[in-house]
């Protein structure tokens, strides 16, 4: 043990903590628990098998879409967008709530030079890293099965990252409002209908106009449109709307969340 020599004005050899160290912490943990990530990758594939292939046999072709697009091709990008959303939301709601309440992980991190903002950005960054892994593996697998053309469909990856960012930020904001573990039921109450309605399994055209308006407001709808456009190489000018929607949603949610966390973590 050598301690700081008494009386010598200590220079500061220490840089302020940066957001990236939160990613390092998570990578360290995932060295022990990597099967969790595996489950996250397989979930959308199971959905694709069940709905894309199973229901696809009944459906034939999708109304309102090019006849050359099969049902599995229609569903796959939606499942990828949903996986990107769920991965990010789980990270900043479920996992983060545990660290905020039971484990008090952040309490000890915040006694170091790390700021609340670095911690929050770091957790969002980690959600992005996870999202990138899940999206890449999913894309590789579906292109092996001939559902996507690879060089063109690569735009799916940045799309998945943007979705991850927006929903990680929304999750971060949500977690600041949670009062107990029971509140996760309320999140489920929003997430599940959104998953079912946001053109995951049916195109927007099948709904009556009032329902269409409701669906068009959902963030998952824009996420799916974005990935689907990249996946199928369609979409024209529309993805710009989705990109703006998700960027604005993410930035606003993140800004408000950091403010609220500051109050919770530094009382």
């Amino acid at each position, binding site marked *: *043990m050598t301690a700081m020599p008494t009386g010598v004005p200590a220079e500061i050899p220490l*840089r302020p903590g940066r957001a990236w*160290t939160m990613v390092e912490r998570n990578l360290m943990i995932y060295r022990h628990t990597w099967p969790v990530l595996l489950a996250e990758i397989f979930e959308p594939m199971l959905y694709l098998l069940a709905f894309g292939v199973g229901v696809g046999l009944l459906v034939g072709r999708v109304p309102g879409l090019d006849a050359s697009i099969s049902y599995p091709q229609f569903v796959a990008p939606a499942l990828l967008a949903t996986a990107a959303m769920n991965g990010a939301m789980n990270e900043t709601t479920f996992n983060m709530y545990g660290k905020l309440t039971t484990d008090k992980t952040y309490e000890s991190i915040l006694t170091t030079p790390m700021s609340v903002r670095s911690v929050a950005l770091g957790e969002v960054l980690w959600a992005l890293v996870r999202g990138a892994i899940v999206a890449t593996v999913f894309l590789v697998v579906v292109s092996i099965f001939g559902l996507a053309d690879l060089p063109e469909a690569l735009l799916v990856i940045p799309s998945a990252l943007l979705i991850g960012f927006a929903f990680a930020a929304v999750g971060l904001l949500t977690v600041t409002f949670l009062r107990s573990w029971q509140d996760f039921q309320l999140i489920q109450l929003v997430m599940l209908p959104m998953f079912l309605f946001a053109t995951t399994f049916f195109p927007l055209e099948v709904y009556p106009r009032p329902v269409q308006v409701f669906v068009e407001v959902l963030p998952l709808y824009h996420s799916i449109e974005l990935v689907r456009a990249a996946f199928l190489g369609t979409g024209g000018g529309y993805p710009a709307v989705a990109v703006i929607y998700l960027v604005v949603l993410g930035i606003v949610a993140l800004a408000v969340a950091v403010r609220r966390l500051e109050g919770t973590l530094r009382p």
Partner: protein
Amino acid sequence: MTDSSTVLIDARGLTKVYGKPGDKAGFTAVDGIDFQVRRGEAFGVLGANGAGKSSTMRMIACVSPATAGSLRILGYDSGADGAKIRARLGVVPQDDTIDTELTVRENLLIYGRYFGLSWKVLRERSTRLLEFTRLSEKAEDAVATLSGGMRRRLTIARALINEPEIVLLDEPTTGLDPQARHLLWERLFQLKQEGVTLLLTTHYMDEAEQLCDRLVVMDAGKIVAEGAPAELIARYTLREVLELRFAPGERQIMTDKCRGLAERMEELPDRLLLSTDNGEETLSAVHRQGVQPLTALVRRSSLEDVFLTLTGRSLLD
């Protein structure tokens, strides 16, 4: 700066009010306290639960902003330069907040990363600190397998990863068995020998007497006494205490007979305490009055007597 009287922590009128500013219902946890901690000192903050010790520690750790007053640490203002101060502090919180998802060594590594230290430095330092806290054999184990004493030592190792100049310890030995406490005291004493300034809260008076050069006693958010342990004992108590126990039926009569035999007398539900300069003489006087206690014990006055004199004996919760 080389002067050992350099003040590292300077609190003036330090106040912490929980609740919204201006809110009348706000709770004042720390009520305008002044104190200074000098380099190399072991400084204790004593107080019952709810006296304001932990709130004071949290403000010094720069994790909770002061409501009013000034707090300068290592020459910086705690409000404006929190991150710079935290870079040079080690914090041992009241509850062990070690990362249960990581191994023992990983806990030290990642914690060092929060300070921006390089992996190379951290690998070397973590090995050294695990040795220092006698955790080398547990290095690659999951945190869940550690005993309470080991968890505490890991928390201390973690607090030393940035080689801090000041280490803050909030009730460091609460809940530990005697062996674990003594090992911890020994390590803390060694740190102090190496010139690290220690600031600790405790409600164990023996711990304060063992470790602290100087201490303050807090009660209801205010400092009610300040000084070296021996000084406080001399100032607030007489040299010795005579403790008497009586048979249940005789207590009141015997107590009345003892009145006037000592300068200060205190009645507890189970015993009678007589403060005196000479316990044996007082005991003889007690016997001469015809008082027949079941047991009689003469002991040196301790910091616990000071503490109870200053903060009262009734339960505060």
